[in-house]
């Protein structure tokens, strides 16, 4: 009897211990790994986001900093006054200028994302199909431009594209054109700049998707009567889809808010939200308006990304 109770006691404590073991076995290493980026994001993303959101709800004021505060209080009079100004957001929708800027940004970003995809796909495909020893070399060539300053590289494009730049001189010299082409300060130059700058962000995810692809699938498709073009669209593209989505997001998102490239390569009529933001902030010194523009841009970008991620998750769950 005593032995039985004894064993029951041991069992009971054993299971209770197991509970504590679970608590004790919180993987501190894992916790630390997750904590570092969480804290980082909280300090450098979430809190600034709240600050910007707060500013967007205030009014411009001739002061330092140049906006009114949301909360006013007087302890002696014992009042707290919360003043939220939605005027900035209303103005965003009233003035078609902002809507145009958003649409134009999305348009330019979309077109350049598609162009980047078209340029990057053959590059990624070639790298994925070359021998492993050459892959490392080719990949490092793709990343190589990052070793020089981004600004410098965009300036270099100005040199290429200007009236008496390299491209015009060459075309004139070859007799292909009689008059120098106006390329700088057009949307065309902006596309070139974005495609050039963001190419590696497209190539790398595409490469990693294509590299995993089983080449016998293409042989199987050919064997079943598909011409190479057909098997490309029916097999290669679907297999590369995760890479295509990742690459397009990596290019599209920063391209929408791009400021430097349209400022340096684009014309005065190249309307992009990044420039509007810059002007509101530094020329008009309208911080609340600029903040509202930034917040709306974030929402515009985050919503479609979340939708895409959701649909991807569902597909994987099937």
């Amino acid at each position, binding site marked *: 009897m005593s032995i039985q109770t004894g064993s029951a006691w041991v069992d009971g404590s054993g299971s209770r211990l197991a509970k504590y073991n679970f608590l004790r076995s919180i993987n501190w290493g894992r916790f630390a790994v997750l904590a570092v980026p969480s804290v980082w994001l909280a300090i450098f993303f979430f809190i600034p986001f709240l600050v910007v959101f707060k500013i967007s709800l205030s009014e411009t004021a001739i002061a330092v900093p140049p906006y009114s505060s949301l909360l006013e209080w007087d302890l002696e009079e014992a009042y707290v006054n919360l003043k939220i100004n939605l005027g900035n957001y209303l103005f965003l929708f009233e003035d078609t200028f902002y809507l145009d800027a958003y649409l134009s940004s999305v348009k330019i970003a979309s077109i350049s994302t598609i162009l980047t995809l078209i340029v990057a796909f053959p590059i990624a495909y070639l790298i994925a199909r070359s021998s492993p020893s050459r892959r490392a070399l080719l990949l490092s060539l793709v990343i190589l431009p990052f070793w020089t300053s981004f600004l410098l590289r965009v300036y270099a494009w100005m040199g290429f594209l200007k009236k008496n730049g390299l491209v015009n001189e060459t075309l004139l010299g070859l007799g292909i054109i009689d008059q120098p082409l106006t390329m700088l300060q057009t949307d065309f130059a902006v596309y070139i700049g974005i495609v050039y700058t963001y190419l590696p962000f497209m190539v790398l995810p595409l490469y990693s998707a294509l590299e995993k692809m*089983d080449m*016998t*699938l293409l*042989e*199987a*498709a*050919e*064997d*079943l*009567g*598909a*011409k190479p073009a*057909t098997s490309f669209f*029916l*097999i290669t593209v*679907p*297999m590369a*889809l995760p890479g295509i989505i990742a690459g397009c997001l990596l290019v599209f998102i920063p391209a929408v808010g791009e400021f430097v490239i349209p400022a340096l390569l684009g014309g005065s009529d190249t309307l992009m939200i990044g420039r509007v933001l810059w002007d509101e902030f530094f020329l008009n010194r309208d911080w609340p308006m600029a903040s509202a523009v930034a917040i709306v841009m974030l929402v515009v970008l985050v919503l479609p990304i979340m939708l895409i991620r959701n649909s991807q998750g569902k597909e994987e769950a*099937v």
Partner: protein
Amino acid sequence: MTSSPMINQQDGAEPVANTSLPLWKQDGAEPFLRIENVTKKFGEFTAVDNISLDIYKNELFCLLGGSGSGKSTLLRMLAGFETPTSGRILIDGVDMAGIQPWKRPVNMMFQSYALFPHLSVEENVAFGLKREGVARSEVKQRVAQMLDMVQLGHLGKRKPHQLSGGQRQRVALARSLVKRPKLLLLDEPLGALDKKLREETQFELINIQEELGVTFVVVTHDQEEAMTLATRIGVMNHGVIVQTAEPHDVYEYPNSRFVAEFIGSVNLFEGKVVEDEPDFVRIKSKEAGGHLYVNHGISCAPNQKVHVALRPEKIRIGKTNPGQNENCIKGIVEEIAYMGSLSVFRVRLESGKEVRVTQPNFARNMGERLTWNDEVFLSWDVDSSVVLTA
């Protein structure tokens, strides 16, 4: 498989000529697939070395060889994925040179199955028909028919990764058969299956082949698979077909040491021809410790060095002398392995040569139990062994 629908082959499987002889034994029979002096080189390496081979309609031909023997390269040339360095391939009389894979009347079942992971089972099977521009209703009907045949009708909506290995293999088979190819190429079709499933599928393949009248060319490294499946086997080594024969002949009458050793296990005795008559040969073998008699003549120079091949299951083993004058040698049991259906003995001869003997376990309790270090007599009939000159 009896309930499976009958599918007419495109060119109509003509009944084999009145003679009961298989096509490859009839004089002047037209081969369906003709491989003419085909060579394939990869740089300096010759993967396929001047192979000529005729394969006839409704055959199930097995290319059997180890890895690197060139069998897969040969198959890939038939499918059109590789171009021969020299030589010609004719399918149904048409030279395949310059004809791309997607235009050949050939379908292939890949070793890895190569099912499209993003398409459902039905879409996988329908893929080939859609490329042909077959009407949608017909595609649907033929896919359903084919999936029923491989007993996967209920799994049409699944994706390949939701299937077991055996089911995937059947999808791959259905996909390669649905276009009713004249010639079906199978690359290690049963490689990824476990033993039980393999056996079932082997017979299923034979049924399908007989039912549809398609000519099969199967590549395998598994001799057992080749033996059960094939009408004929081509044994390949170093890019060359060493022997082409029916399974029985490849096993019983190997033409070279390579074939004898590659297929099944075999005891080889080295010796010199002492007497060479049209109906028998006598060979003096130091290894066997005496003379060996074989009841078929060979054409060779006197005193030529030859090998006598003897299958382990053709040797009788016992403690008592069978009183046989020829083909009887003494040895000592060194090792016994009980394998259920049979026992394997390793017997050491006086010459130091080791001989492998297998005996079926007729009775649960064998009367004469052999144990280690027993002195035994090994004997066999004069028609049990084969003389190999190569």
